[in-house]
Every structure is written in C-alpha cells, then in structure tokens.
C-alpha cells in the first residue's frame, strides 16, 4: 500500500531508478544503512502524515511497507 511512496523516497535519496526497486529489494542491496533508514522513515512520516516509530529491524522494502500498514491499522 505504501510501496510506491517508499520506493520514490528511496529512489530520490539514493539517486537510483525507481523501477529498480522491488518489494523484495533488501535495504542492504540498496546500500541503505541504519542512519539512512532513520532519515528515510522521518521523511516518510512527513509525506504520509503518520508517526511510524520503527522499533524493529526491516530487511526488505516490502517489510517496511507491511510495518507501516500494521501501524496504521493498529491506530
């Protein structure tokens, strides 16, 4: 549900083609480290207007998408 927004944020930040990002893409493969993740999540919070509070590790872009969906559903 949030995959496209996440992919766009990643593509912009890492200066890569948004088409190359898939739900199975791992953050490691995308060269996104833990500091980048914090920055990216805060960015997403501004765009989506929700507090995400990422309190567990996520390996793939799909994981992050599902995490945000669960957060929103829990509210």
């Amino acid at each position, binding site marked *: 549900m949030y995959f496209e927004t996440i992919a766009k944020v990643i593509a912009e930040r890492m200066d890569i083609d948004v088409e190359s990002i898939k739900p199975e893409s791992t953050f490691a493969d995308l060269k996104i480290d*833990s*500091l980048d993740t*914090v*920055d990216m*999540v*805060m960015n997403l919070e501004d765009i989506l207007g929700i507090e995400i509070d990422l309190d567990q590790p996520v390996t793939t872009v799909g994981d992050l998408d599902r995490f945000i969906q669960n957060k929103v559903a829990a509210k």
Partner: protein
Amino acid sequence: MIKSELCSLLGIKYPVFQGGMAWIADGKLAAAVSNGGGLGIIAAGNAPGEYVRSQVKIARELTDKPIGVNIMLLSPFIEEVAKVVVEEKVEVVTTGAGNPSKFIGAWNEAGIKVIPVVASVAMAKLMTRLGAAAVIAEGGESGGHVGELTTMVLVPQVCDATDLPVIAAGGIADGRGVAAAFMLGACGVQLGTRFLSAYECGVHPNYKKKILKANDLCTMVTGKKLGHPVRQLRTAFAKKYWDAEYGGMPDEELEALGTGVLRLAAVEGDEERGCFLSGQIAALVKKEQPAAEIIKELMEEAEPLLLGASKWVE
C-alpha cells in the same frame, strides 16, 4: 567559570563528559572524572549486566557525584544491562551503536537522563521525539565506531535540528576544542582519547605509550566494508585488517579477524595483534595526569579563549 545549562541539568560542575570506551572506561576512571567535576561514564561494551553492576558499585564507593553508563546497543547482553542501570539508579545513560527507542521509556520512568550519541540530523530529531534529555553529536574524528560526518559539520546541524542540549564529541582534546564546540552551538563536550592518559585510566601502559607518541596522521578507519567503520591507530593489526578488507576477504572471516582485538590492546597491550582505538586528536594528548587535572586544564584553557573571542570583532 564556564556556565552551561548542562551542569544544572545533570548536577555536575563542568560540562565535560568522559566517553564510555569499551574495555577501558571502568568504575575507577568514571569516579575520578566525576570527582573532578565532570561526568564519568562506565562502558558497558559487550559485557554482561553483572559486570556493569560491579563497576557501578566500584564507582559509588569512590564518588557520590553523578555517574553515567554508556550502553552499546548491539551488545548481546543489552536486556540485562538495560535493567541493571535502573536497579542501580545510574543518573545518566548514554547510548551508542544504534537506536535506543526500545528502552528510553523505561529509563525515563526510572528518572534516568538518557543522552544518546547521534551521528545524523534525523537521529537527533528522533531522539528528541523519544524523550532524550540531551544528545551527543559525535563526529568521525572520534575513536572507535565512527560516522561519516565530522564534528565541525555535524554539531551545528544537530543544534539546528533539536532544542535539546547538545554535547559535542570527536576531535576535542584541549581548551581550543572546547571553545570551538561552544561556537558551533554545543553546551558541553565529551572526550575519549584525552582521558586515556589519566592516571586513573587502567588501560595497558603500551596503549598509553602509543597515544602519547602519536602524531597528526596516526589513525585510520577500517571496517567500512562491513558497515561498521572503526577508527584506530595505524598499527600492524590495522594494516593487516585493511589489506584483508580490500583484498577480498569474505565478510564472516573479516568479522572474525576483528573479534577480541580491542581487549588484546586495552587489557594485554598486545602490539602485534591488538586493535588500538583512538581519535584523530591523539597527538594533542601529551602527558599522564590525574583526570581531575585534565578537566581543570580544559576549562582553564577554554575560558580565556571564550572571553577573548571578542577581539575578532571591531
């Protein structure tokens, strides 16, 4: 006398922290720093909760001033250490190598002042939101695990990003560094490398000798390939590690190569196989002296610089 909101926030005399260096910053050093008017910090490193408890008890016998514990968030013993600091009523917890969001709530409830080390603007914002009491903006000049940004670049941006008190760390070893940190917007400083030369610092004499002999180009950063860059003195081990890292050694082997090597340096003084962590500023660490004297010197050097800064303006 240097005035800082950090002092009233934490109940310390001078806005000087001694960094929680793994295998090096124990209860005895922390107590000496706290007795000297700064904030002494015990390093939890990768040690179990009972080690941390015993070091806190040692510090408590030597000082009644506030002390801190630096919690390394990647430690396998993180859960028990997180409880010990609450049980032992440690006044301050600093955190490194990760995101302390899981624990901040409990620590705040216990009345602990949580001061995370941040290496980016986003981290500073996140820690502010989670209820940190202050943040330590540590630039890559520091020893040990280092971020991308330098202190010069990181501190002002973190100061812009948060209203919390900001403590600058990385590359500070004398009054000039202290004064500069305040100019960048910080209201306190954290030093690691400089405190290696404290009498009360129990690090191996070989380690101290290397620090005292160091010159400006004395350090190098390895471990970038594994995602955890580390700044250390250019020693036999450092060069060996560098060759392995860039010579295509597989990641697991590289991890294994770096295991236990800080202990070899700090505890055994092993000059062949040890990893001697150090900040870039080691060359300014020139003599052994009591921790209290280090703090006194830092303040006595910084004060005239801060007072005299008006000479630059007509």
